[in-house]
């Protein structure tokens, strides 16, 4: 049973499923963030409170954390095995035509992970009471952060890297699940491209608007 559960195909399957689940969370987060653009802090704070208290969302929060942990753990195991599979590299380099960003998934992924830690310090830990701040006014917390130029630089570069990660991740997950089709695979690639541009762009524009115009 272990050989089946930890086979190369199963590991990728688990990582892809967890990844696809995480993909669904991003548009929800973006929708909530759009409320940051309103001059009135109440709608955003209300949404943040709803996310923090509604029972169904609380259950999804556990699933979301499990998704993140599973995605990172399987990703790391897979990457370490991949490094071990070729102990000696090529002196002439590798010039094969490949999906470019697929080569850097571990690095784009690691950057997102670093951002997540920062993000938890800025928001989630306030709610848990680990970091000082007002958990009922994340609107002001966010606006204060976006007024710091350095924070914006980090924020924007992390979302650029997230976009690169998503571009390969989205379409690759379908291939991993065994879904490869003459007509639908190219369609999925296009959706993947749109998604990987739209999501980081959405988050990025919100931060720029608050940074420069508020």
């Amino acid at each position: 049973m272990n050989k089946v559960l930890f086979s190369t195909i199963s590991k990728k399957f688990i990582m892809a499923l967890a990844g696809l689940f995480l993909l669904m969370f991003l548009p929800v987060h973006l929708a909530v963030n759009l409320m940051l653009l309103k001059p009135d802090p109440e709608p955003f704070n209300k949404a943040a409170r709803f996310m923090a208290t509604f029972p169904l969302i609380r259950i999804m929060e556990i699933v979301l954390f499990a998704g993140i942990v599973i995605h990172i753990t399987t990703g790391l195991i897979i990457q370490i095995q991949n490094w071990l599979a070729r102990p000696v590299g090529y002196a002439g380099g590798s010039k094969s035509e490949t999906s470019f960003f697929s080569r850097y998934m571990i690095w784009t992924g690691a950057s997102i992970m670093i951002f997540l830690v920062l993000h938890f310090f800025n928001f989630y830990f306030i709610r848990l009471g680990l970091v000082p701040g007002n958990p009922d006014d994340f609107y002001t917390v966010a606006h204060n952060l976006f007024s710091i130029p350095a924070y914006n630089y980090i924020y924007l570069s992390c979302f650029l890297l997230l976009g690169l990660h998503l571009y390969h991740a989205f379409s690759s997950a379908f291939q991993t699940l065994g879904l490869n089709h003459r007509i639908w695979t190219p369609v999925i690639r296009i959706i993947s491209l749109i998604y990987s541009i739209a999501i980081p762009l959405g988050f990025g524009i919100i931060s720029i608007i608050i940074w420069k115009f508020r």
Partner: protein
Amino acid sequence: MKLTLKIWRQKDARAKGRFVTYELDDVSEKMAFLEMLDSLNRKLVESDQEPVAFDHDCREGICGSCGIYINGHPHGPVPAITTCHLSMRYFNDGDTVWIEPWRAKSFPVIRDLIVDRSAFDKIQAAGGYISVNTGSAPEANSIPIPRKNYDNAFDAAICIGCGACVAACKNASAVLFVSAKITQLALLPQGRVEARDRVRAMVEKMDELGFGNCSNTGACEAECPKEIKIKSIAAMKREYYKAF
């Protein structure tokens, strides 16, 4: 034309290898790549040096024996051909050519450019066959096979097991090879019977032998001399999921 060759020389599996530079100044563009190596070897033998060891057999692109990593590509920079089909007309006067063996933990170097590809035989032996008694050749039309299945099975069956997919993959993954062997048999009625056990056994063996995981980069598809497509990897995954 004049060429500078940087060739990996390694005495045996245990020895530490290194690149040795050779200069050739009389390479004809009409030569095949392996003929160019033959001419180098003749010179080496004439001057009492060890010739460069490399695998080759049919020199017609169908046996899967040859396999050299040339200038960053398995089987050289020209798509859809094996090393033996690579012509010297794709090189220019004054070029430096990097000539290396396949690099993978599961394909240890035996000598110079020759690697041990018996890992593929082990995967094949784990289930890449039909053990049911198929009897003598039946009347061709007695087992109807949809044209689509026939085509897809044939597209997979042309895999020559050269290992270029493993050599090209950044993870040294063997999934393209294994998927070709699995889909070839799973699509035909005689092979269908054992499809479940076959996919589990072959994948298990592949993992055991230390090949990497698939990152869906598509390098294998780009470098496969027989143009096996990664849709066959998706087909193998479907077979694997179906096996439960």
